[in-house]
């Protein structure tokens, strides 16, 4: 039994994706990451979870760590497959999070007037709703975000 678990986990080599920050780089990075996950044969629900969480994490970096006017910089993604899912690390060298921590990511209040229905603020909610063990560290000049996605579990 243990042997079969080990072989299942070893089917996927660790993935490393490196891009320069830009809006279109997010698409390219997601495509490369999902291609790397091919050997795991994830179902559509699991692929959706990975793509959504990582899109939000990367969009945040492009928008806030490397805002317009700042020079672009590197975004490095590492992904390892373990028995409890996918362990992802995202490192950039842009601006740090305000107050040194990630936003709380609370659900938007929808019990509001028509003109106040929110058009944003869903990103961190989606990350924290779908990902486990989210950590953020600022170790200048790097921002380091780690999280686990409970997909492809043995």
């Amino acid at each position: 039994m243990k042997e079969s678990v080990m072989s299942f986990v070893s089917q996927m080599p660790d993935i490393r994706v490196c891009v320069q920050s830009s809006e279109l780089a997010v698409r390219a990075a997601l495509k490369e990451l999902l291609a790397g996950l091919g050997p795991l044969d994830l179902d559509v629900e699991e692929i959706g979870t990975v793509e959504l969480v990582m899109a939000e994490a990367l969009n945040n970096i492009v928008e806030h760590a490397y805002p317009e006017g700042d020079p672009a910089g590197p975004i490095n993604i590492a992904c390892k497959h373990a028995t409890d899912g996918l362990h992802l690390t995202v490192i950039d060298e842009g601006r740090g999070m305000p107050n040194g921590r990630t936003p709380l990511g609370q659900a938007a209040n929808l019990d509001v007037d028509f003109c106040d229905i929110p058009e944003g603020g869903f990103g961190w909610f989606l990350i924290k709703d779908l990902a486990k063990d989210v950590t953020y560290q600022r170790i200048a000049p790097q921002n380091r975000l780690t999280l686990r996605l409970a997909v492809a579990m043995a």
Partner: protein
Amino acid sequence: MDLRSRSEDNLQVVSVHDARIDAAVAIEFKDAMRASTDGGSETVILDLSEVQFIDSSGLGAIVAAMKNMGQARTLALAGLTPTVDKVFRLTRMDSVFPVFPTLDGALTELRA
């Protein structure tokens, strides 16, 4: 952003012929929706059956399109693929829009 608009009885159907509504195209989508729906019919069905992925920026752009149409008009969503449906469900935005599994279903229901 490839949006195609057509009229069916008193309804307008706007079909998105792109696989993604994400941060890279959210503003373009919002502008294209404004151009398609300004002065249009009271009820607009947004056909999302070709869209495989939206992120929070895409979701925000769809909300902005609805708000731009104004409270007196209705923006209905049809043909949500699994990941698009997931985003609307998790954020509970599926309670803000009338949502139909298929375009045909939306047309049948909204024509009445």
